[in-house]
């Protein structure tokens, strides 16, 4: 078991600066998820920790040792790949035993470890099969087993669930969580799926364009996003954004935009003081919007015209037009709404988010 420290990590591919000054401290036994859109540098960072990619500048420490110069086989890590990477010409048993054979473990010890891992993953009856005879879920388990037998200091996961169909993905997610609770090894997990990130991670690292946007526990990212990108990335359906002007009127602060005139509570107004008179971006999550019955004069709701009604069973998604802006509201299934109807959407003022227009940072 070990902690992983990443200091000022940079990676350049010829002219492309893929990873820019990443700093991260992963605690022993922690499950950290790197999440972000394609090309954000999360996989490159993972591969540098693994030793599959050379480091342009910065340091990676596993345990308390700087591993920059060590080849992958000497870093005491194990990796699970998106495409499973099972050796097609070997049986499941041999696949799992390969790493131990390479390190010259004794035969009985290899057998013990392989069966132990097979037991944890429920694949004891598949040990003699070849990979091509296994289903996607079974293959992924074997890939996991191959990592577990090595008892490494760190597990690395490169989008391991992306190749599975939706239902299987949900199942495997739960299994992974259970296995991590049982085995307890430090883990770094890369994914582009924010749902996986939120459900699996002890802490989540959001990355974009090679830069870490925010690090924190899942709920912190949800409730207190550090910038507009994180706010829009975490949570599904995504947060609604609108451009508004902050204007003072009658001693209170108002956010005024296209069809929107919202009165802000004093606590929020104090925080926004520095931006009075400027344009900022307003953010509100779909699940924080309700269909209200009040009119808009009191500044606690705004009018919207329904364009599409999506009935999911557990909730209803209303795709609405607020002035020229499209928004989504997630409301309870009992709400009656129809297309081209005009409603008033109400919200909890505490759940409003504001972002600086130029930097994107939360205010």
């Amino acid at each position, binding site marked *: 078991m070990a902690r992983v420290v990443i200091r000022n990590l940079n990676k350049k591919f010829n002219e492309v600066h893929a990873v820019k000054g990443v700093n991260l401290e992963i605690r022993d036994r922690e499950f950290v998820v790197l999440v972000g859109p394609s090309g954000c540098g999360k996989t490159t960072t993972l591969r540098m920790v693994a030793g599959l990619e050379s480091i342009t500048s910065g340091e990676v420490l596993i345990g308390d*040792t700087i591993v920059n110069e*060590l*080849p992958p086989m*000497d*870093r*005491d890590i194990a990796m699970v790949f998106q495409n499973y990477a099972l050796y097609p010409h070997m049986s499941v048993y041999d696949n799992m035993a390969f790493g131990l054979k390479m*390190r010259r*473990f*004794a035969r009985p*010890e290899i057998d013990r470890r392989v069966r132990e891992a097979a037991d944890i993953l429920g694949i004891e009856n598949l040990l003699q099969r070849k990979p091509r005879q296994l289903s996607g879920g079974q293959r992924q388990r074997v890939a996991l087993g191959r990592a577990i037998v090595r*008892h490494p200091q760190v597990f690395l996961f490169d989008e391991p669930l992306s190749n599975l169909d939706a239902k299987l993905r949900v199942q495997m997610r739960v299994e992974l969580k259970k296995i991590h609770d049982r085995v307890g090894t430090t883990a770094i997990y890369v994914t582009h799926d924010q749902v996986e990130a939120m459900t699996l991670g002890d802490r989540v690292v959001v990355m974009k364009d090679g830069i870490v946007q925010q690090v924190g526990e899942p709920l912190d990212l949800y409730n207190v996003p550090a910038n507009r990108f994180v706010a829009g990335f975490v949570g599904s359906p995504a947060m609604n954004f609108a451009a508004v002007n902050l204007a003072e009127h009658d001693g209170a602060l108002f956010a005024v935009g296209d069809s929107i005139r919202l009165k802000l509570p004093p606590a929020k107004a104090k925080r926004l003081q520095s931006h009075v008179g400027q344009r900022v971006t307003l953010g509100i999550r779909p699940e924080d919007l309700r269909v209200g019955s009040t009119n808009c004069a009191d500044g606690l709701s705004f009018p919207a015209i329904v364009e599409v009604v999506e009935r999911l069973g557990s909730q209803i998604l209303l795709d609405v037009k607020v002035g020229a802006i499209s928004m989504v509201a997630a409301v309870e299934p009992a709400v009656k709404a129809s297309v081209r109807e005009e409603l008033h959407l109400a919200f909890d003022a505490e759940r409003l988010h504001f972002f600086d227009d130029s930097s994107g940072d939360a205010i």
Partner: protein
Amino acid sequence: MAVSDVVSRRPFARALQRRTTTRLLEDERWLAAVLLLPTVILLGLFIAYPFVEGVLLSVTDTRVGVPGNFVGFQNFEALWHDSIFRTAVWNTFVYTAVATVFKLGLGLWLALLLNRHFRGKAFARAFILLPFIIPTVLSTFAWKWMFDPTFSVINWTLFRLGIIHARINWLGDPNLALISVIIVNVWRGVPFYAISLLAGLQTINPELQEAAAIDGARPWQRFWHVTWPLLLPVTMVVVLFSVIQTFADFQLVYVLTGGGPANATQLFATYAYQIGVGTGLLSQGAAISLAMFPFLLIVVVVQLLYIRRVEVH
């Protein structure tokens, strides 16, 4: 946790013990060097070195047993004025061009035929490759026997069918000899074209043809607008390999006619052999062989550029 676990907990210590050779081979560049070394040595020794030697030979007047002196471009000048050489050049171009056109046409036709499903398809495909598999010299002898003026089965068949009334001297008639040689070359090459183009055809999505048919295209149009453009990359590569082999062909002509009659089938390679090995004029032979090179280079470069262009699209 067992003892072995504790031992395995010290990977970093073990890493330092690794031998220098293993360390070196971890480096991509060193490993590549080691892996490529035998190839580079063999190819350097038996291709690069002879090529240079060939160039050197061609600018001297070496003969077998007689070391030569530097003579500059004398050999090449002599060749330029040698009528047999000029005939050989002409013959080689005609031979290559005509044979390639027929091989491509017939090979493509055969590939299109094989692209359907029919019983015995696997057998047909296997048998069709035989002319390409069997050693050229051996099958060429069979043709020589078939062309023999006195005993030719072809003549007999044509006579019986009423197509001819006197004998055809396939290999002895200067006007026919080149044609006969081309026939054998085409016979040998069609399977290669057919199988390669068949493989290319099979990579074309059948849905494209179906969509075109629904759009109203007739078979010929479908071929010209859908199949042919998609087949072009494979075709170009096949033609490239084939042209080079045909241009430098030796075995066929050597067995069938030896270059005759009256140099009607003389090619670069057979002439080089005749001069260099037959009469022992090594330098001149080398010069003839080398004279192939510029033409080959042009053909290769043109085709490679075309392939690049087609691939980019």
